[in-house]
């Protein structure tokens, strides 16, 4: 029971709490903000688990870029939050049922696998080593991902074209 253990559990609580809050908020902006907290917690978790570069990336990209993008879109599209019917029963019930089954199976699988009882020891992957590893061994993947980003960009531009904006101005 070291300090790291304690930190891990603290972070776990934070992440789960923040996520739970995020998914139950009616106001979308609040939900996104809570999720940002969750991702910050995840970043700290990554740092604890020996991936400082990934922690930085999590903050910059996930919490910083993606969630901000979310906020932009949410605020652009003025969604009337009070209209939403929260957690309709016909969707809630089966999900809850199968969620329970999933949890049970999950616990069972994890508990019965002998390899899962190994205790994680502290280790660090230093950024320069990690960077070298990725760009040496998985350089092709990096290239493909960049291509993917390019395609996404083009797609978004096509989808979010300007022609339709006038229609919505009329509708409102």
């Amino acid at each position: 029971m070291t300090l790291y253990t304690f930190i891990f559990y603290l972070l776990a609580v934070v992440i789960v709490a923040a996520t739970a809050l995020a998914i139950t908020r009616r106001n979308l902006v609040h939900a996104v903000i809570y999720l940002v907290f969750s991702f910050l917690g995840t970043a700290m978790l990554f740092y604890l688990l020996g991936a400082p570069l990934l922690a930085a990336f999590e903050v910059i990209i996930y919490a910083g870029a993606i969630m901000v993008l979310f906020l932009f879109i949410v605020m652009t599209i003025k969604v009337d939050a009070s209209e939403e019917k929260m957690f309709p029963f016909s969707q809630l019930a089966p999900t809850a049922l199968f969620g329970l089954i999933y949890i049970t199976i999950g616990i069972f699988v994890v508990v019965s696998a002998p390899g899962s009882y190994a205790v994680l020891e502290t280790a660090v992957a230093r950024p320069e080593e990690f960077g070298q590893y990725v760009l040496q061994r998985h350089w092709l993947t990096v290239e493909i991902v960049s291509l993917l980003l390019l395609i996404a960009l083009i797609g978004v531009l096509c989808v979010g074209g300007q022609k339709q904006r006038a229609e919505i101005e009329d509708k409102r």
Partner: protein
Amino acid sequence: MAVLWTKDITLLAAVLATLMPFAAFVLIMVFTRSHQKLSAALSIFAAGVSLICALSLLVAHWNTPEPIQYSGRWLASSDIYIPFGYLLDPVSLLMLAVVAVIGFLILVYSLGYMAGDAGFSRYYALMSLFLWAMMCLAVSPTMFQLYIFWELVGLSSYFLIGFWYEKFSASQAGKKAFIMTRVGDVAMLIGILLVLLHLGNLNILEIDSPSIAARMSPNLLTLSALLIFGGIIGKSAQFPLLTWLPDAMQGPTPVSALLHSSTMVAAGVYLFERLFPFFALSPHAMTVGLAIGTISMLLASTMAIVSRDIKEIWAYSTISQLGFMLMGLDAGSFFSGVFHLTTHAAFKALLFLCAGVFIHKYATNDIFELGRKGSRRLKVPMACSIIAVGALAGLPPLSGFFSKELILAGLAGLANPLWLTAALLGVFLTAYYAFRPIFIMLFPQNSATGFDASSNSGHEAGHDRATYWLMAWPLVILAGLTLVLGFLQDPLQIFLAGQYAFSEMPVESHYAWLPYVASMLAIGGAGLAWMEFGRPGAGRVGFVERIPVLFQLFSERWYLDHLYRYLLKRVVDKGLSHIFAQNDNKVIDGSIDGISHGTVEGGRIIAFLNTGMIQYRLMMIFVVMVLLSLYFFF
């Protein structure tokens, strides 16, 4: 069969005796329905051949110590082996002879009685069917074959009782007879199955041998004996299944004479004789049989006292005498039952045939009507009736006297004097009810008692001289047999002594006074009947009729029919049928309907998944993922 059947004369005789009537039945039904005289000729010819073969077999094997058995393979499949064949031992040969003689005489009689009837050929065909079934029953070597022919006998009885099927009461009576005997047969089948389970086969000789005591426990023996006795109760119309026999009088009188007096109902008693060692192994079953025989005897006698229909009186008498036979057999005295069966067959058939002559001439069954219309003028039937009634009552020196004495002597050997007392009371009642119709018919009063009897013979009343003599000489022959059979007691006893290894000694009765007491009782009964009916100026009201309660009880057959109707309505109709109908509607139909309904509803539930909402599709992805993990990890 080891021996080619045409070479062995015994086997040939047995085959001819039993199969000729069947051939006659088939030929008549298929080919000669429209030729009445030809059908009758075929049937009588077959019966004649059977008669000759049966009598020759009887004479040829008079001294054979061992039973002769022929058996051929009928069904064989791995462990199961069902033989069929013939078992010729003294009691079966005797029965064969009885059936053949009486059958032949009655078929000749029917030429006159049934002349002009529309179903003349059908009648002869069915009578041949019956003769075949009865004879094969008599010589069956296994209980299986016996049961088959037992059922066939019941079937031909059904056909013959409902012969005039246009009459509703006749077809009702036929159904009643068949169903009531069927109830007994179910019990018998269970008993047979019990024996089969423990013995491995149904060979009668094996059932009769002492080895069966080693294979079956005493309780099991008693149980199977009682169950087989159930079949005897049904077939021989003993209490409680006795009400079908009076109703069976709806059939033509020769049918009543052949089936329901001498041969078919005697098949039950014959079965008892067949399995006598088996029954003797279980004293409880014997006691039960004794009780049932006694009850039947007394009950039927009381019913006969108040009846007005001549055939019904003789029907009750048959029930009573069969009970008497069973009493003798159950008391342990084998020969007494056999002997009484033989003598009873003769005089009861004679009584029915005489009654048939009266009915044929005067077209009424009611004894007061018959008397009024002048039945005393028909000399031959009247005289034969008097002889037969004397034998029935047990007056010496007629055959009935000898056979009754034997039974009484057997009953006297029992520890409990109750049975003998009941039997003596029965003797008195028998004489009374037997002589009552005779006196009523002999000495009619012209001021009739006003009861317009309905003629339920449905029969033509005209005949001519030729048919009269055709019907008369069988009567004469049977009367002669009645006179003579009594004196054949000793030879028959020796003949049947070789039947079973442990044949009992004739009871040297300590009661030497028994024959005298019995005769006195019989004469007393006849005298009482004379006092009440025969004497000029007699009141013509029986002593029972003076007591209205008893009269009501007896004439309603002790309310047995009412009890059966009530049971049918309550237990069968409202109980069992209701349960099964409910089961059919609610359970079977309900479950099928429920399945289809559930399928439709299930479809309706699942249909909502296809409403186009994407979140349901997402949910389906999740569900499938969980189920797949379930599948992979378990």
